[in-house]
Every structure is written in C-alpha cells, then in structure tokens.
C-alpha cells in the first residue's frame, strides 16, 4: 500500500519527537533563530545540559517514567504564588522573565510586555486575533503548542502557559495577525 510509504506521521524513528523535525521547528521560528533557547549555547557541557538537549519543547509520551498519579499530585517546587515564565521577542537579543501571578488579567500582562519590550500590541479580536500591529503575543502551552495570547480564560492561561514569545512580521501572519 503506497499510501504508507510517505506517511511521516507513522514513520518510526528514534529520538525525541521533534529531533528529526528540527527543521520544522525552525520553520516556525525562522524569523528569529535566537528564539530557540538552544541555539545560543556554545558549549555542550553539563552546565547547560538541560539546554542542549534538542528541542526542549519535545514531549515524549510516558517519559520520564513517572506515574500520572504522581505527575498530577506533585505541587511543583514553584510555589503556587509565583509563576515565572520566560518571554522572548523576535529581534530582541535576550529573554526576560516575568511572574504571571503578578497580573490579574490579559490587559495588565500585555501592558507590562509592551513596556518591557517597547512595542505596541494591536487590538485583540476573538476571530481575527491581533490587529493593528506587526507584533503578535503568543505563548507555548503544556502540550508544546504555540497559541495566541488571549484565546483562553486567564486562569487557564496561567496554568498552561510555559513561555511567551512576541512574534513579529511574517511569522505572525499564521496566527491571524492582519498585517
């Protein structure tokens, strides 16, 4: 059956999902290679061992082998009261970190981001996304997917957000930016 020959989805390979797809990942972020946290690590030694492993957002089913019961019940060492995430912006030379629990909602968050990175975010529309700016605020969720900031209720966002990225220009188009 020829249809099996080209089905990448069923292609078995070793390594983390995404290791052969590094190209695919960089396609997404091709405007700013610096956004990939690994890309800047010069040395591959222990001090950055958690960074060198490509790509960090890869999620393997059932690895590390920790029972779901345990995964669901560990309150992570981050206190419930703070929730730091990294923020990157396309074109900016280094990342920032913010504590999501400092903000009560999206408007406060976006204002803080605008001030931090000196840009303007457009206006948010439920269907069309952000309009009126070449910048689009996005975030990576627990499943490793990149989402538009503002789509889900704030509380859900705080729980599922792993990091933020302010996309710029053509990259932003795919997410509904009307530039």
């Amino acid at each position, binding site marked *: 059956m020829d249809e099996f020959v080209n089905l990448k989805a069923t292609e078995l390979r070793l390594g*983390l999902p995404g290791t052969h797809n590094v190209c695919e990942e960089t396609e997404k972020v091709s405007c700013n290679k610096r956004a990939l946290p690994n890309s800047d690590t010069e040395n591959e030694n222990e001090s950055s061992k958690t960074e060198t492993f490509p790509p960090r*957002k890869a*999620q393997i089913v059932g*690895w*590390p082998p920790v029972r779901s*019961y345990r*995964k669901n019940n560990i309150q992570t*060492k981050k206190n419930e009261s703070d929730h730091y995430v990294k923020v990157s912006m396309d074109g900016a030379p280094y990342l920032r970190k913010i504590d999501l629990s400092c903000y009560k909602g999206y408007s406060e968050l976006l204002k803080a981001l605008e001030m931090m990175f000196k840009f303007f975010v457009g206006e948010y529309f439920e269907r069309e996304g952000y309009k009126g700016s070449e910048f689009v605020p996005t975030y990576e969720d627990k499943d490793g997917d990149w989402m538009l900031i503002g789509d889900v209720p704030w509380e859900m966002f705080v729980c599922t957000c792993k990091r933020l990225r302010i996309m710029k220009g053509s990259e932003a188009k795919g997410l509904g930016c009307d530039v």
Partner: protein
Amino acid sequence: MGLPLPSKVLEHILSFIDSNEDRNSVSLVCKSWFDTERRTRKRVFVGNCYSVSPVTVSRRFPKMRSLTLKGKPHFADYNLVPDGWGGYAWPWIEVLAKKNPLLEEIRLKRMVITDECLEMIAASFKEFKALVLVSCEGFTTDGIAAIAATCRNLEVLELRECIVEDLGGDWLSYFPESLTSLVSLDFSCLDSEVKLSDLERLVSRSPNLKSLKLNRAVTLEGLESLLRRAPQLTDLGTGSFSAEFEPEMFSKLSKAFAECKQLKSLSGLWDVIPEYLPALYSVCPGLTSLNLSYATVRMPDLVGILRRCWKLQKLWVMDLIEDKGLQTVAMRCKDLRELRVFPSEPDLDDVSVALTEEGLVTVSRSCRKLESILYFCVQFTNAALVTISRYRPNIKCFRLCVIEPFAPDHITREPLDEGFRAIVEGCKDLRRLSVSGLLTDKAFEYIGKHAKKVRMLSIAFAGDSDLMLHHLLSGCEGLKKLEIRDCPFGDSALLEHAAKLETMRSLWMSSCFVSFGACKVLSQKLPKLNVEVIDEMYPPESRPENSPVERIYIYRTLAGPRLDMPEFVWTIHKNPEVGVSNLAIK
C-alpha cells in the same frame, strides 16, 4: 519403596508452607501432591489476569480465601497502554461470587473495576475482610460506599493511587456504627473532603486500627484530632501538612505525634510547610519507612527530619533532597534498605536541582544494607555505577532513570555500557533492572551474559540493532518480564528466539521496528502465547506485512485468546466480524 504419604499428613505439612513459589513446586511432584496442595491453598496470586481463566482458578483452589490479580502491563503506568485495552475485574468477580463465596480478600493491581463489581463483592462475600486496589480505575466513590456499608467484618480498605470518579465525601459515612473491625484504611487518592466527625467516630470505634492514610483534603487540625484518637497507629499517611503557622497548633500537633509511640511508617505530607516539620521529630527515631516524595520542601528542612531517622529502612524522597541531603542519609540512616528518589519536575524541561550521581554513590558507600534503588537523575557516569556495584554487591533492585534519553557519561561522554556491566557483574542477586542513558548493543551483551537472576528488565531509548535483543533473549536465564520502548531492533532477533518467550510471563515492546508480519509469524510459532498487536493508528489487518506496529504485548496463557479485545488490539485469533464480548466487560 515407602508408603505414600497420607494426604492428611501432607495437608498438615503444607499448612506450614506459605510461599506460592514453594507451593507451585510442591504441586509438580506428583498428582496426589498436586491435589492436596490445591485443596489447601488459601492465598492465590495471578500475575497476569489473562494468563488463566477465572473458572480454572476457582476450580483448582476451592479453599481460596485471598486472590491477587494483576491486569495491565507495567508500562500502562506511563500512559503507554491505550484506554480500553482491558484488565477487567468483572469476569473474575462474577465467577468467584458464585463459586468461592467464602473469599475474604481481593487485591487488584492495574485493573478496571466498576461500581457494579464492587457492589457484587459487597453482596456476595459474607466474610469479606480486605479490599486493596492499586493503580485501578473504573469506579466511583459510590462503589466504595457499597463496600463500606455492607461488609460487616471489613478490616482493610485501601485505595492506592487509583483513578476514582469522586462523587463526594459521603462514602465514609456509609460505614455503619457497628463496624469496629477496621485495621487499615487508605483513601489517600480521593479528592473530596470527608466529614471529619464521621472519620473521628470511625477511628474512635476501631481499636484495631493500625494503618490510616488520609487524603489531601484532611487538614492539620483534622489530623491532630484523629491522632489523639488513634495513638496506636503504626502506619500514618497525613493529609495536607500545611496551614498558616500557629504556635498553638504546632504544640498540639507535636503532642499528638509524641503520643504515637508505635508509629513506624509515615507518608502523605502534601503541601508541607517547613515550620510544621519539627512536629514530627518525636516520631522520627522510631520510623522505619518514610515517604517524603510528595513533600515539596527543600534540602535543609528535609535534613532536619532525616538526621533523626536513624532506624530508617525505606526512604522515598524527591530530588529536592540534593546530593547534600543524601550525605545526611548516608551518615545517619545506616539501616537503609530501599531508596527511591523521584523527580520534582516531571517534565523534561527545567530539571535544575543539585542532585547528581554523587548522591547515590554516597549512600551506596555508607548504607550496607541498601538493596533496592530507584533513582531519577539528569546525568550519570560509568565511574559512579562501578563504584556503586563495588560497594553494594547485595543490590537486588536497581532502577536508574537518567532523565535525558541517550545521555552519555557526562564526564567522558561515553555510553554507560561499562557502568551497567559493573552492575550486572557485581550484583549477582539482581532481580530487577531498569537501564537508561546512552547504551549500545554492548551493554546488552553484558546484561544477557551476567544478569542471570534478573526477572524483570526495563529498557528505553537504548541499543543500536537487533543484536541488543539477541543478547537479551539468548541470555538472561531468569527473565520473566521484559519491557522495551523506543529501541531500534526489528524482527530477526525476536523471531530467532521465539521459544524464549514461552519461559517468560510477558514481553512488551513499543515504538520499536517490529513488523506486523513478524507478529503473525510469532503467533503461529507460539500457540501457547497471546501475541497482541496494539495499534491505535491503523487497524492491524489493514497494515502491510512489513510495516512496524506501535505496540506489541506477548504473554503466556492457558486461557487462549481473550474475549474482550477492543478494536485496536489484534491477535491472530481475532475474527473481525465478532465484536467485543459484552459478557467480559461490566
């Protein structure tokens, strides 16, 4: 020459033999010994619920009082077995209810049990004493209420890490006032709050209560009140160990703990606030078992507890303990037999705790009785493994999880082949082994050759070729359970060593390169085994012969093909027209 042993005499002799392994040997001597043994066996263990039919077991052991059953394969714990695969308790309960009404104890692990099953248990076994469910699912708190309400002589009710549909905390109030026989109660996996007053009364009227494991919803205040009523406890799982610090609460709690002079085992400690930890100090010197693996406190606070636990034999803790904390363990817990260190950050990202291979080396050096290890760590070295094996040749269970797949020795950058070689060569009594890190086929040559007593072997992201499987299946004389994921072997080693599979309980392979065609061949070669192809992506019959399948589960069975296979499970027996049997699942 001699007269045959009268069966009454043999019966009497056998009444002293508890070990099922021994009884299995006894039953092989001759027909009459088989018969006498089977009529006297009270505790029955079935390691794979599909290996034998309930009717066969029920018939063979008419005096059965306790049944232990295991269902899903071990990798189900890590979400590698799709929902609906199987492991249903119903067919067993149905048969036992009719044929073995004097059954007193049921212990299930990784099985699916419904409320209807639980109700049937409650209704059918008049002498029912003990229900232990480990990693089970499929039921609600209503089913538990049925057990509580109906089993008049209930002694043990333990729900360990089960997935329960929690309909509220009412179930506890179903224990009648007349129930005073409780010895062990574990509801730690339930979410809902139970009524404290009901719990207090239950505890107060249970003079035999030795083990009590509360759920997270029980507060510190609640705990204090319960401890006052049950100072005879030997085994305690606290609820949430957290509240705003109040000196009065602290001193009440300390006092309550101080009264528990028989406490040997402590667990729970969710959300623990460091300021309340010293309330435990009085019980520390008596503890033999301590589970801090849900306690998200840092090393200095952990050390405060651990340095007082000089009788500790079993310690479960998170990597927050760091190498430094393990130094304290090494110094103070000289009686340590089992150590488990879990990752505090269960995702691949953000592992950044000061726990390295050094921590395990330190403990291995100093704790002479250490024989069981489970250690999650970001990195490891061959040198550390060699040192561990040198100091602790008595290790029976060694499970190392280097969290980064394919991680080499972080100093030499070499594979960890030589390190694991030292482990299998040095630890001659090794029964269980889990390997990780960068491993070539060579590592498996060593394992095949030296791990003669290993019964269970777990492998992930390792090896280079079919050679690895060849080594394992042609060696490892004692191998009973093999589970492998994401390794690059194909069909040839598996087909070549098919006969080995008949000597094992089960083999699990997922995300390897074994083809559907090979599965078919295996099925034909091994009629006494069930070869299950578990594939959610494509119905196996639609696959081309040489395409690799997602998962394969092969196990010995006397029961033939199972009747409850969902559509994503295929065996050679499966007739596509026949649907899933309704009788099998209830």
